[in-house]
């Protein structure tokens, strides 16, 4: 297997895809692969759950199937994580440009991103009409849907002028989550004041009610950078299917949010926190892991539909969690997490089940002040950047997603003959 010129990301080893005869060899399921070009139709091995299926070609991100390394637009995520700035990463993912490359566009993008946080008062009111104990993912979905009503009139073309709307969604989702957080803790609404702070700064302010520390802002930015895009995860793929029908962007996002919290998705970190916060000390945690696994149950934060290796983002998150926990005086919680990780890894790694990004990701969200049900929403803010980038990209040369199924049901029959053929 050789590598055809890796123009944009020379640091990566390339896997070969035999493009000329358009036959793609057996590929590890679920991962992103690499090719010089993608000419339809393609031939691949197909497993249950569409494993091995190529749904699209993308320039947005690449996952190295052998090491699990992740790159956004050819830039390794590890280097983006060194000086994390979620807004710049959103710009990179959505426009394909580095913020240094075109500072004018970047300034405009950041201005639009931040000013899109001014939500229509009716949308805030709709979210605040809901019971504060409503699950935040459901409130967020309702809020985004209501926003879509404000953005799309019956007099518009149904598909509308979509491009400028999509850019705003990242900021709008962040603002809505902020409002949901305030509503949950019984604080007044932000009131749509023009704000100067970054998305991370504002959200931490919504969570704690006071000006956040620099380290906390950096940690949230880091989390969002690492969560910004990850191949065709369920919310992203759902949005792409919906977008292929030329639905308006808010509809895509409502559909994507519907796929956010399924239990097979791991509840997007929520389940991790539920299990972590129930443990009293490391000794008890270790015993709990043993009993849990002996009874055939799974541990939240372990396993991934595709990964057969530890997720490399975990290393960065573990370090960050250790230092943040000690700074917040929650070293005990980190010790419990570490014990669960070690005990579970001992048991599960031989079976090919490894720790995933949600394990320490959810712990970090909690250390930043978020209670467990908020974890999926905080992940959703980050994921909007990758989702919007992939959906926008997919709109060029778009084709309706319409696969087939094979009929194995009843033979032709008629009502007259009592249902007999």
């Amino acid at each position, binding site marked *: 297997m050789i590598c055809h010129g890796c123009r944009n990301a020379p640091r990566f080893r390339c896997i070969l895809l035999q493009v000329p005869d358009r036959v793609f060899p057996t590929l590890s399921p*679920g991962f992103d692969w690499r090719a010089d070009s993608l000419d339809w139709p393609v031939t691949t091995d197909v497993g249950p759950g569409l494993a091995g299926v190529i749904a699209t070609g993308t320039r947005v991100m690449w996952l190295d199937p052998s090491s699990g390394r992740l790159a956004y637009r050819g830039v390794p995520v590890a280097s983006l994580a060194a000086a994390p700035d979620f807004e710049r990463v959103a710009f990179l993912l959505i426009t394909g440009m580095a913020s240094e490359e075109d500072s004018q566009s970047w300034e405009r993008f950041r201005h639009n991103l931040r000013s899109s946080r001014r939500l229509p008062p009716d949308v805030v009111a709709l979210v605040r009409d809901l019971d504060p104990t409503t699950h935040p993912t459901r409130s967020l979905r309702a809020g985004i849907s209501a926003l879509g009503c404000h953005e799309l009139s019956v007099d518009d073309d149904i598909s509308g002028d979509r491009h400028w709307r999509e850019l705003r969604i990242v900021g709008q989702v962040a603002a809505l989550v902020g409002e949901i957080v305030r509503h949950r803790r019984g604080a007044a609404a932000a009131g749509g004041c023009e704000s100067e702070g970054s998305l991370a700064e504002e959200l931490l302010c919504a969570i704690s009610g006071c000006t956040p520390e620099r380290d906390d802002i950096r940690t949230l930015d880091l989390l969002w950078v690492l969560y910004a895009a990850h191949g065709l995860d*369920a919310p992203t793929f759902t949005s792409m299917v919906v977008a292929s029908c030329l639905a308006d962007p808010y509809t895509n996002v409502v559909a994507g949010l519907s796929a956010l919290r399924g239990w097979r998705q791991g509840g997007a970190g929520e389940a991790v926190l539920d299990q972590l916060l129930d443990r009293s000390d490391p000794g008890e945690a270790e015993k709990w892991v043993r009993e849990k696994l002996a009874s055939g149950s799974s541990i939240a934060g372990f396993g991934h539909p595709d990964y057969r290796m530890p997720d490399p983002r975990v290393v960065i998150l573990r370090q960050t969690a250790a230092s943040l926990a000690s700074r917040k005086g929650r070293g005990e919680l980190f010790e419990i997490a570490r014990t669960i990780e070690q005990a579970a890894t001992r048991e599960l790694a031989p079976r090919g089940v490894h720790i995933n990004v949600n394990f320490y990701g959810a712990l970090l969200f909690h250390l930043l002040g978020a209670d467990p049900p908020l974890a999926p929403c905080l992940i959703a803010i980050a994921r909007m950047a990758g989702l919007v980038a992939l959906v926008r990209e997919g709109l060029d040369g778009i084709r309706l997603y*319409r696969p087939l199924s094979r009929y194995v049901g009843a033979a032709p029959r008629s009502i007259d003959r009592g249902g007999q053929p």
Partner: protein
Amino acid sequence: MIGSAPVDARQTYGRGLESLVVGDTAISTIDGNRGRLAYRGYDVEELAARVTFEEVTYLVLFGDLPDASQLEEWRREQIRWRQPPQAAFDALRRVPTRSHPMTQYRTMLTVAACHIPEPENNEMDAQWRRPARILSWTAALAAAAIRHLQGLEPVPPDHGLGFAANFLFQVLGSRPSPEEERAFDASLIVQAEHGLHAAAFAALVVISTGADLGSAVLAGMGALSGERHGGANQLAFQMLAGLDGPDHARIWAREAVARGHRFPGFGHRVYKCPDPRVRVLEPHARALLASHYREDLWHSYLALRDEVESALGPKGVHANVDSITGLVYHPIGLPPSAFPIPFSLAIQTGWMAHCLEYLPDGKMMSPGAVYVG
């Protein structure tokens, strides 16, 4: 069933997963070359002529037509859910009156989903309890959304009426004529299920994550609202209504064909022959338009269809169901922007059936992308 079925190991497919076989299904079969659509073995022509939409929903979801007592129980279960939470109606106060009814309807559903009167539980038995509630809530909320567009208050349900008649009652504020009810019911029946079209596929992706059935339906509805999909019946009707009689329709269509225009409501990814659903609905549309003195629309439709099909028919382009449903909904009194809604009410039956069929052992859908940067 669909998730665990052996799929051919090596498959060739195109953009948009065209011709990829995702798995097995026992729900419906579509013959795109001979123009046949059958739910669980029954042709839609026969179903539309002989049974009601409630019976068809039972058939599509549970696999067989109900007997008298099963039907009675199914109707009772649906009637039980005809009053969605008040909060969902109140949400209409928070959205602009002139927003698209599909988006208002979607917002009401997302708010209703915050008020489901049972604990969160996505076990199979809980999922199976949901279709009746989803069918009834969506109908009531959709009717309220359509009335809101006209500045009218919601109408409470009439429990003496069946699904189709009650929906029209809640939209129009008066009972439909038997002819209108029958035509509307037929339109729901022929649109109740259509294989793994994009919206059903979106629903399937969502349910495969372990989400609840209502979330899957919301995703399907999103796909449906796109102009390529459910929005096509609105666009097809607006095209037709903009034509000034059959002669104009012919001339315009001829020119439009010549410049390669894409006609909304014509051509279909699966049907390369006349659409069987059009055959079912044409007599209903014709009779309704005649009794509302709108024969001109019928003749424009015929002229347009003949012109387009004679030019593009050899290429497999024929009138599809979206070109005819508007001609049923318009004389009944629905505004064009609401045309996608009955389609959505009907076809969510099929999405739910696919989801419930996929759930028992279906794996989470996780296709990949190839990096070409």
